[in-house]
Structures are given as C-alpha cells and as structure tokens.
C-alpha cells in the first residue's frame, strides 16, 4: 500500500509537474527581479505570446486528434502577406474574410490529405511547410508587403489597439482560448477529437467519422493561424515573407509543454495556454535577468525533455526507460 501511495504522489507530481514548474519559475524570477510580476510586465509577456498562443490553440486540436501540424509557421506567413496585400487592393473589410477563406482552403487541403486519404501527418505538413512557403513567395513575388497608408486605416486595431486598458491581441487570445476550450471540453465534437486521438479504431467502431474529425481539426488549426496572421499583420502593418518561419516548432513545444501527448488523446486548451505562458515568461524572465533571448532556447529544451520525461515516467511507474 505504501508503495502505491508513493506512486500516486509521483504520478500527481508528474501530472501537475508543469504547473509546479511554472510556479517555481514565477517565484524564482520574482525574487530575482521585482519588476517581473508587475502588471505592465505581465501584460507585455502575454501580448508578445499572443500570436504564438493563438496558433498553439489550433494545433492543440490537431495534436489531441493524434496528428501533427508543422505547416502553421509558413501558413501564418501566408495569411499575413495575403491580408496586407489585399488591404491596399480591396480594403480591410473584404481583405480579412478573403484571407480567412484562403487560409482555410489550405487547412482543408491538409485535412483532406491526412483525414480522408490517411497520409502521415508529419510528412504531409512537412511538405506543406515547404509548399505554402513557395506559395507565399509566389504571391508576393518575394517582396516585403507593406500597407501604404498606415495612418489612414483602422486595420491596426487587432495588433495595436486596446480595450479597457487591455491590448486587443490579449483579448483575442483569451477569448479564443475560452471559446476553443469550451468546444474541446464541452461539445460532442471535442469529445470525438479525444476519442479519435485516443484510439482512432475504437472511435470508428463507435460510429465516429474519424476522417471528418481530423479534417475539422485542421480547419480549426488553419482558422487559428488566420487569426494569428491577422494580429501579426495588424501589429506591424508590413511584413517579410518569412515572418512565421520556425514558429511551428515553438508552437509544438508549447503544446507539448502543456502536456499533450504526441500520440494523441490527451491535452487541454488550458494546459496549452499554460505552456504558451511558460515559454513567454521564461523568455521575459531571462531577458530581465540580462540574458539574451537565445538562452531561452536552451532552457526550453531542458524543460520540454523534463516535462515529457516525467509524464511518461509516471505512466510507466519508473524513471528510466525499459530499453535494453
């Protein structure tokens, strides 16, 4: 009995490990620098994490359904470039829905390949990473995209505006997190996403249309990417073709940090938000300590490995692997 209790504690530690690590970081950084928890600083962290965070929300759906999405970075570049370009051509009112439609088409294409054709999501989205990057370059002709009249448009509201003293990107991120959190936790669709990721065969045997659920997850993911692209475009009013490059891995890191298993079937929106905030706060905390941003990479590396390791160690009931 005693050993079971011990295992239970170990399991609980591992399950809540990410929250505990988060708390330790916050406390540590706060002691090191009293500006860390100041409202301005906290707001700043969340605002700078918003774009990554919005994308991570969508990818959470994909990962829980048992797949990967490595294309979100280049897809975000695409939506940013497209909406900036269309802004000057057809005006923001039409540009935004047009950009959403185009981005969703990309998501639908990936969803079709992975869901209905059952192709491996790692390779498909790897291919799409490259293909969408090409598409973006073709669209822009390789040029940076800028809004000509930056003063005379309300387009900046999504990235630069604020309401009730809170920056709009934060509001969008939190609202979207709440919405998607409810969809995942409280709707039949959310339940099916967990079932498909947990055991796709059993889900099919229970009458769930696996392909359709996977398809919809990629639609969700691309919708989130479109929102992220909108915020990015609105914030900078101009962009390079490679604005989202490499973000797919940061996004995935945040989702994994949040405890979603790459095998599918586990993870929550709340935990992903925590994962995003951890990445944001680490970066910020290290900066406040006077360390460069790239130290964050090293710290993130260690944390990801530790988080996943503890998670699976708790599941197998022992720290080291059974690999001979």
């Amino acid at each position: 009995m005693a050993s079971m209790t011990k295992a239970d504690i170990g399991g609980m530690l591992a399950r809540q490990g990410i929250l505990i690590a988060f708390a330790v970081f916050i406390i540590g950084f706060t002691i090191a620098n009293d500006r860390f928890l100041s409202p301005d600083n906290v707001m700043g962290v969340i605002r700078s994490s918003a774009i990554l965070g919005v994308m991570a929300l969508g990818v959470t759906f994909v990962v829980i359904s048992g797949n990967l999405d490595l294309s979100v970075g280049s897809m975000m570049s695409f939506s940013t470039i497209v909406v900036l370009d269309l802004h000057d051509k057809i005006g923001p009112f039409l540009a935004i829905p047009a950009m959403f439609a185009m981005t969703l088409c990309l998501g639908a294409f990936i969803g079709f390949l992975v869901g209905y054709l059952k192709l491996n999501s790692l390779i498909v989205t790897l291919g799409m990473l490259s293909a969408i990057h090409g598409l973006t370059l073709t669209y822009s002709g390789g040029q940076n995209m800028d809004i000509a009249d930056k003063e005379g448009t309300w387009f900046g509201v999504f990235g630069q505006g604020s309401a009730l003293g809170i920056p709009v990107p934060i509001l969008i991120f939190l609202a979207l997190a709440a919405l998607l959190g409810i969809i995942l936790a409280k709707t039949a669709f959310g339940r099916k996403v967990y079932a498909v990721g947990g055991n796709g065969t059993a889900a099919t045997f229970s009458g769930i249309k696996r392909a359709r659920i996977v398809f919809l997850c990629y639609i969700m993911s691309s919708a989130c990417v479109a929102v992220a692209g909108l915020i990015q475009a609105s914030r900078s009013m101009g962009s390079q073709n490679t604005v989202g490059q490499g973000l797919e891995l940061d996004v995935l890191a945040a989702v994994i940090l949040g405890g979603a298993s790459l095998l599918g079937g586990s993870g929550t929106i709340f935990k992903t938000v925590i994962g995003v905030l951890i990445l944001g706060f680490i970066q910020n905390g290290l900066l406040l300590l006077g360390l460069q941003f790239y130290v964050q990479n090293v710290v993130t590396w260690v944390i990801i490995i530790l988080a996943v390791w503890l998670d699976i160690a708790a599941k197998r009931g022992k720290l080291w692997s059974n690999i001979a």
Partner: protein
Amino acid sequence: MEAGNLSKILKNSAIWGFIVLELIFFSIAGEFLSLSDKAFMDVDNMLLLLKQSAPIGIIAMGMTIIMVNGNIDLSVGAIFALSAVILLDSLSWSVFAGLGDWVIPVSWTLALLTGVALGAINGLIVWKTGVDAFIVTLGSMLGFRGLVFMYNGENPTSSLNWTLVDFAEAQFLGFHTATWFLAVVTLIIWYIMTRTVHGRNAYAIGDNREAAVNAGIKVGPHMLINFMIIGFLSALSAVVFYSESGSVNPNDGQLYELWVITAVVLGGTKLTGGSGSIVSTLGGVLAIQLLRKGLGHIGADTSTVNLVIGLILIAVLFLDRQLNAKGKEELKI
C-alpha cells in the same frame, strides 16, 4: 507474389526513373525557357550539382540509418551550425597559433567531435528516458541552436584559411572535394547498412523491435551509436561546406532537417522504420538538387522550388500508400 515483386521493383527504381524524367524535362524545357545558352546537362553544371548535393546528402545518409531504425532527428541543422562555429572559431584559437596549417586537422577533429557529442546527447536521452526521438530532437534542435547563439551572439563566425579553401575548391578527376566526401560517406554508410551486423540490426530493430529485443539485440546502445553517427555526419557536412565558405551565420543550417527528411522520404525510406536504402537516399538527394537547379535553369525562382518539392513529397507519400494498399483484406477504418 508476382504483383508484390513488381511493385517492389517499381518502388526501388522509382527515384531513378524520376531523376531521368527530371533530366529530360529540364533539358527540353531549358531549350525554350532558359536564360543561359548552356545546355542543362552541361558537364560543369552536373559537377556543380553533385558538389551542391553534398551538404544535404552527407546528413541524409545518417538520417537514413536513424529512420530505418524507426527514429527521426530534427536537430541536424543545429548540429551542423554548432560544428561549423567550432570549426571556424578554433582555427584562430591562440593555443593553436604555433601549429601553422596543422591547425586544420585539429579544428576538423574538434568540429567532428562536437557533432558526435551532440549526437550522443540525443541518443542517451532517447535511450535512458524513453522519450520519443521526435520530441527529444525537437527540443535539442532549439537547445543546440541556442548554444550556437550563445557562442558568438548574433554575429557571424568567420575565419578564412587559404590552405583550407584551396583544399575545398580542389577538383580531383574533375569532381570537387565535397563530391568526393559525399561519395565516400555514401559508400561507407552503404557498406555499414548492407554488410555489417550493426547495419542489419538497424533494419531488424526498425522492422520488428520486439523480435529484435527478444533476439538479444541491445536496442539502446544501438540507437545511441546511430545518433552519434548522424551527429558525426552533420558535423562532417559542416566541415565540408565551411572549409570553403569560411563564415557561418548563427542561423545557418535552419530547415536542413526538412530538406534531409524530404530527401530520405523521396528515396523511399519508411517513417515507421525497417525499410530504406542508402542508394535510394542518394537518389532522393540528387532528385531534390536536380529539381532546385533545374527549376532555376528554366527561370523559376525559389518559390516554385519550394512549392514543387512540397507537393512532390506529398505525392510520393500518396503513391506509396496506393502501392501498399491491401484491398479486401483491409478494414475500412
């Protein structure tokens, strides 16, 4: 069995057929579209193509072993960059000042050891923690890249050693130094995979891990060695490339993992492990390089190259699935 053999032959030779198609297409299309008067299949052009294939190609050989094993390594680009930084920086370390040109082999060794050490870190974590190689190397891709930046901030690391440049730019029997490196690496890895116990065990582990474990194959140390091999090859790739260029940016090698994996998958290696051939990987590497060069030749820009390569990768995956479909035997799930 007949049909099985046929599809197998089709699959094994598909990449070479694809290369021939590319050559024909770009030669003909080049006649009409090319901006230069030179033919696509010009000897110099082809020699250059082989040389340019080397950096990706050398790493792809290591990636084939890793993927045959059923693992993946996303950190190769970061290992490439860190080894390059060590290579170029150590050339000008004051401790080596008295060595003259003998500093070159010393720096090479240091760079290669860096690669092996980084690979060993990946391998040890995969072995000891049991965390999936995808996550481990995703993490170390960030971490190793962080180390690159920590080394020299956001500044490039440069060092031009003319002896080294002369060596790197040399041609022997018409082929460039880099091409020779690719050829030798391909040969050695091919030999390992087809002729040695380690190579055959790599297939066995990827194919049926439980059976391999039951047969007493030490899976952990085996995977560790493979991660050290790919670390070594990533470093070797950096050695070959930066001996000539003499300057490395901290962002260099980014997305190399994507190119390498694309080449390996194009060559027919299965993601699930157990199957894959070094010769076909070489085909995959050449096919990608041909595509990049060929599209450039007919006036297409990088954008088209990215688009086409991405779509081809997906098409290959689709074809592979269709060829392996079992028909009535398979459940509709």
